[in-house]
């Protein structure tokens, strides 16, 4: 039964036609929904943000009333913990694993995929996958330059975005070079979280891209040799910036949330986030003042997609698929897109939706929205991450 479905899925996926995918699984989708009823989905998701937790709570309530599926939000600080837990459980032969669905992307996805810790392919067979903008948003199929292969379902879009109180930062610095000049003029008032924090790692990747003449090389797997030709310029750029950072670049805030709190307190001047709508969200929540501005770099900032995936030893695979499908539905995506709720950009092709559905995605320009957008740049291949983090620790990790 399972094998037959997999066969159908791969055939459908190879056709690259969402409509075909829809018909291919239409026969057993009701069966999956029926099996899902009464199951419990343990959804392991980063829980450091109130709006996100509240949104997950809403989605859980909807799942209960619509599909009779119980969703438990397992609050975690770092998705790597989940990767490790699944690996340990699989190694110990535990079939009824503790994780049914995990919020994931990038390096963690690559690890789970390469160690065969993921169930699937499943995502392209979900009914709502037909609505995903796979052409306009290529990162829904290429996660950090790693092929998704139907092993995770796209959930939301992200792009590195900076923000500040407009009353204190008149002219936002729109490149790493400009940021360095800004920091020199305001010593001790700029910081980024220390890698391996997700945002910290993204920041040093952004520096890598801006320090290189031809960033195209970064979409291919890296090795030490290749990296060493980029390393000196990258380090020179970081050196120049670090001189005027908070604590002279000897200590770093521990997380993006800490940076945000320090910006709200006035201890730092510039914050960073992966959610372009977070600054507007912070204004709506009263954390940041109404004059808050948000921007991306002129030549672009790193953008990516975040996903949900089902571990190979998940206990409620059916309910996890139903939940993943619901999270991709126009209704759930529109609500998530709303700045007053979460403000996480959609993975769907809004233009392909019905007119009333399209209207539900319209966000009125809110204070704190991105006023100076830049193009989304592709993530470097996930294999660059350990090289960058290791080099960063060697040079800056000793205080």
């Amino acid at each position, binding site marked *: 039964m399972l094998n037959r479905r997999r066969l159908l899925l791969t055939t459908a996926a190879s056709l690259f036609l969402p409509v075909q995918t829809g018909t291919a699984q239409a026969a057993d989708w009701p069966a999956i929904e029926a099996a899902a009823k009464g199951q419990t989905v*343990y959804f*392991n998701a980063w*829980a*450091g*943000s*109130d709006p996100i937790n509240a949104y997950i709570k809403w989605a859980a309530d909807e799942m209960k009333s619509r599909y009779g599926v119980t969703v438990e939000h*397992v*609050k*975690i*600080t*770092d*998705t*790597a*913990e*989940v*990767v*490790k*837990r699944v*690996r*340990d*459980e699989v190694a*110990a032969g*535990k079939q009824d694993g*503790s*994780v049914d669905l995990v919020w994931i992307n990038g*390096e*963690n996805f690559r*690890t*789970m995929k390469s*160690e065969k810790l993921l169930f699937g392919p499943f995502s392209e067979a979900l009914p709502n996958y037909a609505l995903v903008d796979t052409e306009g948003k290529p990162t829904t199929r290429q996660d950090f330059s790693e092929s998704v292969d139907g092993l995770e379902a796209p959930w939301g879009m992200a792009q590195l975005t900076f923000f500040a109180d407009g009353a204190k930062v008149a002219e936002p610095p729109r490149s790493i070079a400009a940021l360095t000049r800004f920091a020199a003029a305001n010593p*001790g008032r700029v910081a980024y979280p*220390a890698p*391996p924090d997700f945002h910290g790692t993204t920041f040093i990747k952004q520096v890598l891209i801006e320090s290189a003449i031809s960033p195209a090389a970064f979409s291919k797997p890296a090795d030490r040799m290749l990296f060493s030709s980029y390393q000196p310029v990258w380090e020179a750029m970081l050196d120049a910036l670090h001189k005027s950072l*908070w*604590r002279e670049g*000897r*200590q*770093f805030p*521990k*997380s993006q*949330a*800490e940076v*945000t*709190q*320090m910006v709200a*307190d*006035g*201890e730092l001047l510039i914050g960073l986030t992966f959610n372009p709508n977070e600054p507007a969200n912070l204004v709506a929540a*009263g*954390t940041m003042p109404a004059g808050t501005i948000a921007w991306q770099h002129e030549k672009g900032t790193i953008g990516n997609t975040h996903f949900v995936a089902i571990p190979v030893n998940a206990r409620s695979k059916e309910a996890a698929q139903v939940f993943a499908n619901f999270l991709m539905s126009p209704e759930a995506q529109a609500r998530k897109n709303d700045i007053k709720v979460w403000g996480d950009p959609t993975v769907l092709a809004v233009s392909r939706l019905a007119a009333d559905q399209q209207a539900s995605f319209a966000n009125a320009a809110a204070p704190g929205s991105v006023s100076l957008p830049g193009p989304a740049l592709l993530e470097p291949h996930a294999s660059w991450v*350990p090289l960058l983090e*290791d080099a960063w*620790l*060697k040079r*800056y*990790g*000793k*205080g």
Partner: protein
Amino acid sequence: MTATRLVAVLPLTLLFLLPLVAALVLVLPGLLDATAFASMIAHPQFAGALWLTVFTGLLGTGLAVLTSLAIVHAAGSRDLSRGSGLFLAVPHLSLAIGLAFLIMPTGVIARLLAPLLGWTSPPQWVTTQDPWGFTLIAALVLKETPFLVWAFAALLNRDDMRRALDGQVAVARSLGHGPMSIFLRVILPQLLPRMAGPLIAVLAYSLTVVDMAVVVGPGQPPTLAQLAWTDLNDGDAATAARGGAGVLILSGLVLLLIFLVGAALPLLAPLRHRLLASPPRQDAKLFRLLIILWPAWFCIYGAVMLVMALQSIAAQWPFPDLLPQHATAAAWLRLVQDSGPFLTTFVLALATAMSSVAAAVAWLEWAPRRADRIAALVAVFALCLPSLLVGLGQYRLFLALGITGTAPALFLAHVLPVAAYVFLVLAGPYRSFDPRWNAVAAGLTAQPLRFLLRIKWPMLKAPILAAAATGFAVSVAQFVPAQLAAAGRFSTLPMEAVTLSAGGNRPLIATHGLGLMLLPLVAFLLAGWFGQPRWRMR
């Protein structure tokens, strides 16, 4: 006879000895991985982390010992045990959170100074996350000093100690010695050897603490415990193995330092001999100032709690304002509405404390006295080991048994340190129970069980309840083993607090810090109240 022995030994063996041994047996072979060791030693932050760990651990412990001795001396014959019990109720994590709110650049102290110095934006001073770890040391001293004071006070309150010391102190006084002289010559030499357990526990804890270091410690480099914890949680298998090697190196470091400190103490003997050979002395006036130390502790803890209470209801609190602009109960409502973690923590603490006390009493009452040394040694040893190592071992054990993420696993993970503390706290007072009461009761033809129920246990109710409250507090504060054993199926208050501190929502962090404090505080107050002799309760 064998049945009694079994009843005596079995509970503590099942709850504590066996799981500990099984955990270590399971975890150690996996950690002996040469590649992982080499890569940990080659870690760019390893040398710095090692140095920072030794520096903060030794200085923190040393200062806590000196301060606690000064406080015990200054108190004279006053009983410090009840006051110090209150401090024990404050978990390390809560204290670290509150201390940070007090001293960080946007903290209350900076806000108090702002109008005087004309600050409009937060000062760029280096308080939390200072590269030397001084804030971490301060937090350790603040937390460990009352624990040591409490342990000293418990020792001084023991019948046998008090009887012996009272006479000796009277003799010394009549020979013209001042209080400090008496303390150094008569009291201290008798106290210190009996304090080995608590002193070792403090040193081991200071060297291996994770949650406190995460909140107020430096990050570049972090302490060795933090470095290992970050690696252990990494998704990459090789990095996780490197973390395991870090845990083993940390365990070795703890044992080595305990040994070195123990070996270095006799080197102080010439100093002591000079003191003993000097003539009787009255105290220098300066020593009288020590009397303010103990009240100062109450003031600091009071300030920390006040700041946390303010922060927990602060909707918006921009920098130079001394008070929040608006008050909101949102964070407290969240704690009440999402009451699962609170209840889980409470039920676990109650269950582990009660079963540990029962197991310890059974052991102390019916097990042969020779076996005490073994249990005590294992308990001290368990407390020396980083909770990282024991937690990891238990996690492997639970994985092998297939019970990760179940209630029994969570119970076992919590009960291990609880049983160790309860046994150590209870063993002294229980064993010093005057055996002549036995003889009196037997002479009055009381059956053994009747004697226990009517005479011995009621007379020992104060130490038994104190041990239960200690166990309760230890259970509430568990983070590392809880996090590993729960597998995301359960959440406890410390797990919520650490997760939230990553999110930076200060009212929620403060609320959870206070919630963490509230449970043990109530336990200690109840233990203090019911532990009084019955005539005083009326």
